[in-house]
């Protein structure tokens, strides 16, 4: 087996709060293969975004390793990391907040290339910006407009163009479509999939929308309170969800078809508990209908139950 593009080993990110450590990402082991998309799903506050940012070292992880082609990038110094960033980019969630309002569209898209000095010639830079705008489907007449003049869909296209500017291998997509209307969302999803086919990008696609993640991902990791509770290929996860939380999550999605109208849903009771100084054992136990006394045992590692289907739950040994 070849080395995966990105691999996290025991990645942890704790935030210090007055009440104690907030375990935002707790011992996460994931891999992203070349040209594939890993979907990360979970409810708000489960640590999805923190995970994405820790991998890019936008947040310095507390401990663990992030391996890029087998090399631990957490050991890189500032200079080497700067160089490294050309290979990894991010598309942010909110196209209204992630673009500098005082820069024009062309300045925003050109900035990564200016910062990394990949293209220094002015003329060449303009050509590249035009090319990128074409790629993401932004008309050239928007070159000198400011973000506030554009709607959400077009703004998100700027975000995509900016992430592509350095021709990275790996892109973290942090809820890139959740702020958009469905018809615009579909346009952006199609664009991202086309770009992947063409350039062979690897995505880490963070979202809370399971129908979106099903559409775009090859593999899915389900997170709950900072921990990864289930990892499987998209097909396997949707046809055979094993962890009680994944089952509840899938059951909770409202499906736009009348066939499911009168189906009795198993609605999980309660809400997400606090991630500050969590107790050892399964963090979902307080909401889980299968909870037993053994659920407090501290061993919560992912076990391979079926081929390439990992789950952390005492129901499966």
């Amino acid at each position, binding site marked *: 087996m070849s080395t995966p593009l990105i691999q996290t080993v025991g990645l942890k990110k704790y935030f210090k709060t007055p009440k104690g450590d907030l375990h935002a990402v707790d011992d996460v082991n994931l891999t992203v293969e070349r040209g594939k998309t890993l979907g990360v799903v979970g409810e708000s506050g489960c640590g999805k975004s923190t995970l994405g940012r820790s991998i890019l070292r936008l947040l310095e992880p507390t401990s663990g390793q992030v391996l890029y082609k087998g090399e631990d990038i957490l050991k890189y110094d500032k200079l080497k990391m700067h160089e490294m960033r050309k290979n990894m980019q991010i598309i942010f969630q909110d196209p209204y907040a992630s673009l500098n309002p005082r820069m024009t569209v062309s300045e925003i898209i050109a900035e990564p290339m200016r910062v990394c000095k990949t293209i220094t010639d002015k003329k060449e830079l303009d050509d590249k910006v035009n090319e990128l705008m074409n790629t993401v489907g932004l008309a050239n007449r928007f070159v000198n407009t400011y973000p506030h003049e554009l709607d959400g869909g077009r703004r998100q296209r700027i975000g995509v163009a900016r992430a592509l500017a350095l021709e990275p291998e790996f892109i973290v997509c942090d809820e890139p479509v959740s702020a958009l209307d*469905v*018809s615009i969302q579909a346009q952006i*999803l199609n664009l991202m999939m086309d770009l992947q086919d063409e350039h062979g990008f690897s995505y880490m696609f963070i979202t809370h929308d399971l129908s979106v993640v*099903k559409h775009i991902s090859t593999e899915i990791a389900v997170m709950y309170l900072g921990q990864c509770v289930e990892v499987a290929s998209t097909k396997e996860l949707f046809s055979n969800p094993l962890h009680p939380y994944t089952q*509840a999550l899938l059951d909770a999605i409202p499906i736009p078809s009348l066939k499911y109208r009168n189906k009795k849903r198993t609605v*999980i009771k309660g*809400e997400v508990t606090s991630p500050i100084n969590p107790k050892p054992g399964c963090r979902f136990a307080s909401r889980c209908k299968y909870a037993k006394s053994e659920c407090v045992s501290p061993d919560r590692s992912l076990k391979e139950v079926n081929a390439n289907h990992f789950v952390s739950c005492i129901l499966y040994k």
Partner: protein
Amino acid sequence: MGEKILEIENLHVKYKTDESDIYAVNGLNLCLNKGETLGLVGETGAGKTTAALSILKLLPKKIGFITEGSVKLGDIDIINATDADMRLIRGDMVSMIFQDPMTSLNPILRIGEQIAEVLQIHKKDMSKQQIEERVDEILNLVGISKDRKNDYPHQFSGGMKQRVIIAIGLACEPDLLLADEPTTALDVTIQAQVLEMMQELKDKLNTSMILITHDLGVVAQICDRVAIMYAGQIIEIGNIEDIFEGEHHHPYTIGLFGSIPNMNEESKRLKPIAGMMPDPSELPVGCSFKERCASCMEICKAENPEEAYLDTHMIKCHLFDRKNESKTMS
């Protein structure tokens, strides 16, 4: 046909801004029967919220105007009602659940006080004791322990806050509940809890409801009828079966369904609608969907289509016009 609770005819709403006039609602016709749940679906800027605010006459003063049309709530003519009348209607006959549970509660009042407020205004004959009891009862109904009524909003999570807001909306058992994206700000598992609760309450109290949403999945779960809005008009309306399983649809509705990733089938590509909604300050002549429509014809560029009916199903599109009726809708 049951008793009609709400009748909107040819409603036009305009917002005045310094730069231009924005035509948010353009000729909206809508009828709602008692006990019925209507889903009002559309993209951002389609005029869904404006339509709901017009029913309550809560359009921003000196900016939003109802320029034409009539809104009737039972026997009451809302357009000509005075401010004093409206204060009696709001909360008692019609109440609204706003989109964002984080900002629609008063942060410095205990939630018990906020629920009691509605009762104090509308049920003048209730004693303090009775109001207290009613608050406990309604909290119990939405699944919050009555011990928590002296807590402040910040002590609740998002899902709990939305329950409190629903409790306020239902305190006087209104005939009509306007729910503006009540679950959009919530996580799926919490959304499922809130939707289940709303469904139960609706059955119990026989309240009519207009559910404003852009999530067709939520609509499929709890609505009886669905109206699709585009550029300030209802372009298709029908029973839930007409919209989800019917044969004929407005091209926009087809596009809307094509944009959602399907959970049950393997599909490689989504089929989105190209382009954007027209600028509401300069509405085009003819059909407002013409520029994004694949089956646009000459007539679409010149004339706004009429409403074409087939039993309970209405589509506003030249494809289904009376002239073509014989071949398309028979």
